[in-house]
């Protein structure tokens, strides 16, 4: 089960992040979580939202460069060793992580780990086999 992430190119310019977030808010796009990867010149804003297609349209109509990426989100217990357990499985199966970030689920005592893999399908198969819960699109609504 893959989840759709929205990514946005942000020039290193005052107010650009605010512009992106503001227009999404105005169009009632609910941002579940976000992270920013950056270097000196630019940033890439990555978000999980309730309606990725709509988010993409809103951003593009405001001349943002945005795209959609498939990612995998897994649910782990929010206690020490939770992340290590998942990474151990991935490492043992030689799954390469392009990038990752994490957030805490509001209603349960769980943490959500978001991964971008070079081979998503293989990663999902490995995670499933090792009884690590992969979060589905429907779960997003409950975050």
């Amino acid at each position, binding site marked *: 089960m893959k989840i759709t992430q929205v*990514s946005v*190119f942000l020039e290193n310019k005052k107010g650009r992040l605010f512009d992106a977030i503001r227009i999404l808010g105005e169009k009632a796009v609910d941002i579940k979580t976000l992270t920013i*990867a950056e270097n000196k*010149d*630019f940033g890439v804003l*990555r978000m999980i939202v309730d309606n990725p297609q709509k988010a993409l349209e809103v951003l593009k109509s405001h001349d943002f*460069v945005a795209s959609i*990426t498939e990612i995998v989100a897994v649910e782990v217990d929010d206690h020490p060793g939770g992340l290590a357990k998942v990474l151990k499985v991935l490492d043992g199966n030689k799954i390469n992580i392009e990038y990752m970030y994490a957030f805490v689920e509001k209603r349960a005592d769980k943490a959500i780990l978001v991964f971008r893999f070079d081979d998503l399908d293989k990663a999902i198969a490995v995670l499933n086999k090792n009884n690590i819960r992969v979060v589905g699109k429907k779960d997003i609504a409950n975050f």
Partner: protein
Amino acid sequence: MIFNKQVECLAPRALKDIQSKRLCRIVNYMQRKSPVYQKKFAQSRVILRKIKSINDIDHLPFTVKEDLRDTYPFGIFSAPMSDIREIHVSSGTTGNPTVVGYSKEDLDLWANVIARSLCCAGAVPGDMIQIAYGYGLFTGGLGLHYGSLLLGLTVIPCSSGQTKRQLKIMQDFRPRVLACTPSYALYMAETAGELGIDAKKSSWKIGIFGAEPWSEAMRQQIEKRWDLEAIDIYGLSEIIGPGVACECHCKNGLHVPWDVFYPEVIDPKTLKKAKPGIPGELVVTTLTKLGMPLIRYRTRDIVTINYEKCACGRTSPRISKVLGRTDDMIVVRGVNVFPTQIEEVLLNIEGAEPHYQIIVERHKGLDRLEVLVELKESFFSDEVKQLQNFEQRISKEIESVLSIGVKVRLVEPKSIERSEGKSKRIIDKRSL
């Protein structure tokens, strides 16, 4: 079709007689009419009696833009104001704008050289032309207008801007010829894409583009996007506006109508004639203009010149596309940098848009060159390292052309100011 075959295909030797007669006549006219040139001739100690042939032209003094600015607004005109029929003004980045004046004869000459240019480009009487150069004080719009009327084209005087309307007119009226700046042609292609218009199906088959330097790669891009023949037209208001030179269908240099505009190419440092094929500054003498004739006007445009006869049959020399400007040229760590070199690189890299800006800064005595490049939507990756690799690839390509280090910074699409006229490519922040 050749508009004035008798003159345009005349053997150079016969033409030389015409040029020599005209040169003698114009210097004597200016000596009588223009206090500015009386002074100039006196200062350069030229003996006008001894100017007998076009070969003697190098005894005459140069004219530079400052000569026009210093005599603002009308001091450089040779004809009395009562004989001036039209005035154009070009914006300057510093000081007073440049003012040019046309007598009745000059306007006829202008129409004539533009009609020659239009024929060079492949237009024939009966064609419809969409003129998307600015009308008004800028020479582009009206110059093309007068020439089109003389040739017998149907003119749509759109002027620049209002891109959606331009595209609608193209679709509805189906003109075969388009005239605008090359950057505006690309801008219109972008807009067409956004509106879902198939640019390849446009009615434009000939594009006459000028008023800013553009590269061969940009030509290919325009031709590919619009599926038309992109022809380079050259000019500057000081000489007449557009029509000082224009490519023919061979697209191998721009023909200079040298029976009226006599071209020389000089080394801008030594002021001596440049060796054939070596880039130098284009210098033009107007042989027949009456309102504001200029002797050996230094255009600041860098070109090469070729005197071989062209396959099209015209005998006039051909200048290359403008390779750069003596004043746009920036010297960074001893290397001459022209914006067109960077444009050429970008056009050859997939994912980079030919919209760029060059920023030069001096940091602790060392010049640094930064190039802002717009990222193409389809090339966006959400992985920072991919984007960084892309930046590095562009900077390596530019470095291999310029042989100096540059820093490339990706910026959002459409964040670099688009211009419907000339674009500001260089920001020099150095205090030199």
